[in-house]
């Protein structure tokens, strides 16, 4: 993917996106659902949409998930 299609992907917004504040408020709950394979994205579609679009929150999510999974091992 390059050029216009990459730009299109970058500019697209999801109206379900809840923003950083709400997503980070519930991040610990969301991560445990993901770790337990409990349909987190279906229960919290606005958080899932946000984590797909927001690099920094996506990074915090990936880090917390890795920490939780690492602690469980």
């Amino acid at each position, binding site marked *: 993917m*390059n*050029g216009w299609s990459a730009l299109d992907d970058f500019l697209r917004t999801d109206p379900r996106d809840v923003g950083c504040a709400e997503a*980070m408020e519930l991040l610990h709950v969301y991560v445990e659902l993901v770790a337990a394979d409990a349909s987190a994205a279906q229960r919290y579609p606005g958080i899932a949409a946000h984590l797909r*679009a927001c690099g920094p*929150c996506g990074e915090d999510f990936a*880090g917390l998930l890795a920490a939780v999974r690492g602690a469980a091992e």
Partner: protein
Amino acid sequence: MTPADPAIEAIFPPPRVDPDSDHWVRTLSGTGTEREEALARLHELLLKIANGEMRRRGGQLRISGPELDDLAYQAAADALLAILRKLGQFRGESRFTTWAYKFVMFEVSAKVGRHFWRNPAVPIDTEDWDRLADRFGLEPDREAERRDLAGAVRLAVDEHLTQRQRKVFVAIALNGVPLDALVVELGSTRNAIYKTMFDARRKLRAALAANGYLDDETSRHS
């Protein structure tokens, strides 16, 4: 924990706190040796998580060795302070440690954002529109397409964005400034910068669609 209204709790009972989490909250809220031991144990855990997270992000950071260790140490110490400050807000919706590790992630992000400005690649407000084509993967030999894309976006930016939206868009999309670094530079919050960028993206996409450059659909759910 903050006392809740008994009438509300009768309708919406709070989640049951698991025994380990309950132990963390009780000992950290207590006094004396038991609290000191809990603090030391929590700090050790947070430091382990901060070290792991710094190394997980290490590739993108251009930081290594003692500097990385130092940032991890600072992140763990600041996370511990945040946890103690917010202990009354823990509701048992997750394990205590998951909730606590979240603050390590926030502190790591903040430290990394601040660290960016020690050696920034470009100033945040440089407007070199030729960079846009590189940013979206257009090869140098596709000159006409590169010119079209940069010209169309620049026109949409000129016509549709506020000054604040333009500043944020240029910093992030054109100059590759990480969002958390921009938060530090502008003295703002991640939520506020993201919202500004969200609105800018939405406006630019609508303008480019209206001018026939992009499909005329407003969003795509994945």
